[in-house]
């Protein structure tokens, strides 16, 4: 992928927390790209670091107990690691916007929805009230809010969950950001509403060309929405691939286990038992030696318990962090080293 087509390029992102039990590294060596107009998925279970990746990119991790560092975070040619807090504040909401899981708690209950959705324009673009109102109305139409004019003066509680999430997406897109980060945007919604919102996001990408990072625990959403996928486990990316490649040729045993353990609404039940991954996610403060997945892995060999594998290339654009299934050269390839 040529640099010109890359909106976001993240290299060796590390986030640490200082706590009672010393330093805990919640993100380790996270590197990935987001191409222009692409939807890139971050998928993993709780504690895998997928939301932490988003917060770290946005400079929104809690201070002072957290520390974020990276070799490079490049947004459309601008190096974000060189910007201070003020610089990041200007980027936030204008160039990178975020949509969160729970639209009720991310909206102020005592302010009109229209005013809140237009706020990024007031902060970043200095438009007049009238201009802002016109633009908000346009955005409400774009995201398919019925009776958009009347909804401008509604309060959050007067909207349904689905409409609130549409309003949040309108707010996210109002400054025409280069990148939209959607963190579990449909997890709190009912399945029929979820289908509406996912369709809306796909249409926005197709029509407006928004680049999207889609954070989810749901492999179904990944399969429906994403172009590329990063599978996260215990603070690291363990597999990175094109979405078709990932579902057809999953390489990392964790990805394989995850794909096997999702109940499939389209498949007949064979037996009563479902494939599952034994054990549980490790405590980040007490990580196993070697590969972080080794205590739960069925394919484990002795090196897995001694040394940590790197993210290594299997095929064009397909990388996995595994001693057994990804060729670990003396100088490991993959996004770690590029």
């Amino acid at each position: 992928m040529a640099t010109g087509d890359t909106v976001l390029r993240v290299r060796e992102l590390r986030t640490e927390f200082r706590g009672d039990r010393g330093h805990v590294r919640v993100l380790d060596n996270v590197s990935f790209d987001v191409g222009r107009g692409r939807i890139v998925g971050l998928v993993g279970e709780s504690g895998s670091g997928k939301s932490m990746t988003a917060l770290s990119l946005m400079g929104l991790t809690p201070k002072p107990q957290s520390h974020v560092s990276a070799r490079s975070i490049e947004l459309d040619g601008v190096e974000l690691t060189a910007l201070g807090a003020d610089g990041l504040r200007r980027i936030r909401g204008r160039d990178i916007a975020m949509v969160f899981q729970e639209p009720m708690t991310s909206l102020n209950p005592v302010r009109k929805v229209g005013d809140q959705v237009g706020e990024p324009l007031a902060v970043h673009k200095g438009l007049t009230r009238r201009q802002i109102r016109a633009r908000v109305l346009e955005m409400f139409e774009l995201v398919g809010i019925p009776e958009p004019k009347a909804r401008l003066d509604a309060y959050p509680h007067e909207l349904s969950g689905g409409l609130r999430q549409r309003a949040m997406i309108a707010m996210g897109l109002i400054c025409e950001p280069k990148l939209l980060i959607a963190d579990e945007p449909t997890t709190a919604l009912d399945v029929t509403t979820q289908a509406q919102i996912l369709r809306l996001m796909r249409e926005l990408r197709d029509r407006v060309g928004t680049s999207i990072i889609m954070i989810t625990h749901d492999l179904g959403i990944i399969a429906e929405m994403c172009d590329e996928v990063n599978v996260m486990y215990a603070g690291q990316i363990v597999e990175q691939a094109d979405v078709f490649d990932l579902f057809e040729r999953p390489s990392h045993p964790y990805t394989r286990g995850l794909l096997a353990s999702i109940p499939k609404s389209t498949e007949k039940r064979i037996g009563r038992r479902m494939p599952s991954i034994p054990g549980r996610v490790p405590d980040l403060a007490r990580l196993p030696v070697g590969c972080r997945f080794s205590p739960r892995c069925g394919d484990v060999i002795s090196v897995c318990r001694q040394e940590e594998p790197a993210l290594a290339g299997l095929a064009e654009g397909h990388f996995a962090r595994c001693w057994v299934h990804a060729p670990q050269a003396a100088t490991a390839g993959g996004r770690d080293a590029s």
Partner: protein
Amino acid sequence: MSEVVLSTRELTKHYVLGGGLFSRRHVVRAVDGVSLDIYERETFALVGESGCGKTTLGRVMLRLHEPTSGTILYRGQDLSRLNERAMREQRKKLQIVFQDPYASLNPRMRIEQILAEPLRTHGFGSAEAIRERCAELLDMVGLSRRYLRNYPHQFSGGQRQRIGIARALANKPDFVVCDESVSALDVSIQAQVLNLLSDLQADLKLTYFFITHDLSVVRQFADRVGVMFLGRLVEVGLTEDLFDRPLHPYTMFLISAVPRADPRQRGRERPILMGDIPSPMNLPSGCRFHTRCPFAKDICRTEEPMPRKIDDRLVSCHFPLES
């Protein structure tokens, strides 16, 4: 077919809201005339979206909430007529596992106390017998006996849910309501807990009433499914049949809305239900689904469809699909 364990007839639960000095009186018809038979040792899944009344139905069935009207028959006995004492005796056999493994265990009690409480309430036996039963319960749910002295916060979500299951099984129930019991868990852990529930069902001859919003889990786990919409069952049938050939339009939309974990299917033609669920305080006339139903005709707006049998299925729709 095997014996009916629990059945409901025209069961309703209405809540009255407001009606004070400043607000109008509203009646929420959370459960509005549900008749259902649950058979011995089956897993019956109740699915529906938030606000459809599925949780309320599960609780009213066990009389954790009092029904407004209708009957609940447990092995032929009318639970709705039992006095409190007689009901407490029955409750040993009727248990529930809640959704949130964090909120449903008292954080200040040790696991042993949590498990011993229902045993003591129902006079299980001596302190020694109770202690032995607690250890046995942990064995049953795949946790080590040495955890008996631990507190809930020392466990992961999956382990806590196992404790919730152990507590429900303490008095050897035969009918267990699982209310979104695996919904809060990560997929890899969810599969472990579902497998545990299956094993326990086989070993202990349990009947499950499995309430969930997750249709993928239902397809793999349930023998029969009931689809609930605004307080009513709109379709009931065998899992395979219902997924392969939904008869109620709402069932069809619900199934088609589930994201499929196969990127090759993303281009498929799929109907998406538009609009929002109507308020249960202000139910539409006629069929409750008609405001969102693209197939609605005049009769749907005026006349509420009664459940009718098509093959093995029960459907409440004037114009069932494919028939």
